[in-house]
């Protein structure tokens, strides 16, 4: 019997697939109960409290000769951390490399292509540190502490403002309800993107945030 799974903070589809021992996310999306999820533009992103249906794990069957030593390979889903580092004005950062440290893994130096970092990570890795050393003397290094899978979906205000925050528009703490700061962030973004200055999170603005943020 397929089971209902309730999403926890930090969950994303790849991590769920991996923790269930599934080789990829397709197995989950193939569940007819998850049709609606499959139709989302970004099925990977899930908000805590949402539910999805997970398939039963079928026991893997191997027919192997006895008296021999066999190497079995389990296909795990692949996960990748993709981040573009930019200036608050929307240009790629001038930095050309970053040092990435997924939690409990060794650090690795990665070059940035127009600010873009791509790095394979274990699917269930909860956090990664990225150190960006400024190429400009006198500028501080920035330690980004990335909480993987914690970005809420764009459809809700939490997700929309989290993206504005990541883009450098909105600086309030998460629990903040400062209407002025929110409005300032929205209007500044709308201005930069040539949208009508409404000061509210309308559909056009939400769609544009998703486009500019990247997902």
């Amino acid at each position, binding site marked *: 019997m397929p089971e209902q799974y309730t999403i926890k903070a930090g969950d994303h589809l790849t991590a769920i697939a991996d923790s269930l021992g599934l080789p990829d996310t397709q197995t989950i999306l193939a569940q007819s109960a998850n049709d609606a999820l499959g139709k989302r533009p970004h099925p990977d992103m899930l908000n805590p409290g949402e539910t999805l249906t997970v398939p039963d794990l079928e026991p893997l069957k191997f027919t192997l000769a006895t008296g021999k030593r066999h190497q079995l390979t389990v296909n795990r889903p692949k996960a990748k*951390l993709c981040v573009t580092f930019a200036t608050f004005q929307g240009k790629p950062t001038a930095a050309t490399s970053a040092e990435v440290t997924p939690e409990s893994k060794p650090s690795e130096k990665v070059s940035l292509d127009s600010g873009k970092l*791509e790095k394979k990570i274990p699917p269930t890795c909860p956090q990664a540190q990225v150190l960006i050393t400024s190429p400009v003397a*006198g500028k501080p290094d920035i330690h980004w502490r*990335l909480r993987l899978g914690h970005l809420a979906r764009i459809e809700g205000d939490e997700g929309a403002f989290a993206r504005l925050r990541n883009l450098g528009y909105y600086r309030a703490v998460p629990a903040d309800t400062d209407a*002025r700061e929110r409005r300032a962030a929205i*209007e500044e973004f709308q201005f930069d993107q040539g949208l009508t200055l409404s000061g509210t999170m309308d559909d056009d603005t939400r769609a544009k945030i998703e486009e500019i943020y*990247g997902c």
Partner: protein
Amino acid sequence: MAADPAPVTIEAPVAITATDEANTLAVPLRAIAAVPVEDARFEFDSSFLLPDATRALERVAPLHERFPSAPVTLFGHADRVGDEVYNKKLSGRRARSVYATLVRDTDIWEDLYQHPLGADNWQGRPVQSMLQMLGFDPGPIDGVIGSKTKKAAKDFQTAHGLPATGNLNPSTRQALFAAYMDAICTGTDGQPFQLEPADFLGQGLDPDGKADYQGCSEFNPIFVMSKQQDHDLSAASRRNQRDYANAPNRRVTLFFIDPAAEVVVEDWPCPRAKEGPAGCHKRFWSDGDHRLKPADQPRRERETHDTYACRFYERLTLTAVPGELEAVRPGEVRARWSKARVMPVHNSTFPPATPPTDAIPEDCKVELLVDTQGVADGTPARIEILHAQTDAVISNGELDNLEVRGDRVVQPATGERPQWQFEATHGPWEIWDKPLFYMVAHVGDTSQGESPHDLDAEDDLLRVCPVLVTISDAIADTPAGGGLTTRDEMYEIGNIEKLDPARGIYSVPFNQAVVPIALWGSVIRNSYAYHQTSHGDVRCRIDGDQFNSNPAGDQPTVCPNNPAHPGRSVLFIGDTPIGDTETADVAAVPSVPRYLVYINTCVAGFEPSFANAFLTRGTRNVIAFQKYIPDDDAREMARQFYRKWTQVFRCDPEKIPEVFASVAPPFVGSMKPVLFGDGAAGAGAAGAAAVADALGGLA
């Protein structure tokens, strides 16, 4: 710049997707510290920085030391008076003037000198101010480059190894600008302090200072007056008051920007200082124009958050996490004011109620909030109030007998928190000092708590707004003021528009006011100077005979009907005598003006004993007239006197005799003006007569 600034940690939620769609991360732009250079630090309507700009500039050095890698950018601001294009230029010139001072770029000052903008002309008073500040006396700061200024220039040239021509030629100006910048732009140690162009956001790479300094025109006021205020002050005759109300809006603000933010200078949103305001309008809030318009209520950015039209500027000033007050720990005493600003007694509103009353408005009261933790009820306590600049104690034991009750310091009689009211006699601050105060609470024998008293954080201090000049055309029970001098004339004559509220130099006019003698002291008790243009009579105190029936001649000091009443003449207003007896009555006149009483009566005014009543109680000077005074002459002399005293000498009390001597001579024949007090040839009437002699030989 520092080599190794501390790394910055930023936490961010990101998405992990099966595709290559990326998250985008940017460090937000924000200011981490700010230093305002207020209007008062500038010459009026000018970009020239006055000597006491030091007070603002010396706050830059410690912040630069604390945030060495934080780039600096400057925003100049103008008020709404004038059109926005002009204001954009003026605000830009002010920002540029401060920038030049900080990086010691004398070429920028030379450019400002060479190219005046409207009233912003450096070629007169500014060079005189610079010479004077550097110890070379140019004579009066009047904008006229006369022989004294040339002599000062010569001395300056000699001292700096330049040919002593007395001409303020380019090389002299360069040396003068450099020396003056070094003198006014110092660290807290008094040593010259400067920044490098590389310390600024645009790193000095743009020849016109892109991202280093810019002008916001009139778009980001701190204060927007109400519709009613705007309407009331729109008349040309109320210009002075309008400028007074707008003073906080004229300023330059220096921001330290979070060094973690990566800024591409060519993308910096603000137009250059010399560019027009079009680029500013683009960054307006969607309701930006509306924000600048007066509404039903006056608005202050600090309270209503809706006075900045520029969204970008507002965002820069927002802080991410508002600071929270720490809890009071056991044994601790914490002291703070119930409000940040009080008016001295009886001058609570501007303009004040007419006529003033004896009631003390709420604006004049401040509660002293002293909280304790773990201190026993009944523990004795006392509070001292101190001037923040000099640390002088100005409370006089009035707050000695307090006690702790329920974790707070209260008055034992009422159980309420103590209150305090400021009066001018609560000196010893001088008129050019900032009227900022803090308190120290002593609880029991050991515990002590101080309210904040860092001059860098003026908002934590108590600001008192003293009144410098009170002008009245009626001080007693006459029919409404006599009405010979209108309110607008009083403003104009008293030169009130040129007074400087940002320095705490305020003025209060009354006219058409009936103020009984019993309240007279209330009117003037908070004034540094009192100017009276009353419609009064001189009579014999003993038999009440009027003397002023001979308008063309000297006022008699002996009763004409009874030679046995010498020296008993007295100024009467209605049936009330106002003479030495009355003004010396401490109950009626609790304190006298510190510096000046100017008796500008239109019928009679020379009353030596009356003047002496002020002088013996501490007023520095009294000016009066020994003859009948024609209205026009009376107004003209007063006009000239106040113009010179307030504008040229910034109300320096020591200059009163000098100003008097320079403006009085043309009026000796018609009015015989007399100066009593300091600087007069002697004390009282004899001294006054001697001055009159010297002026015109008419005694």
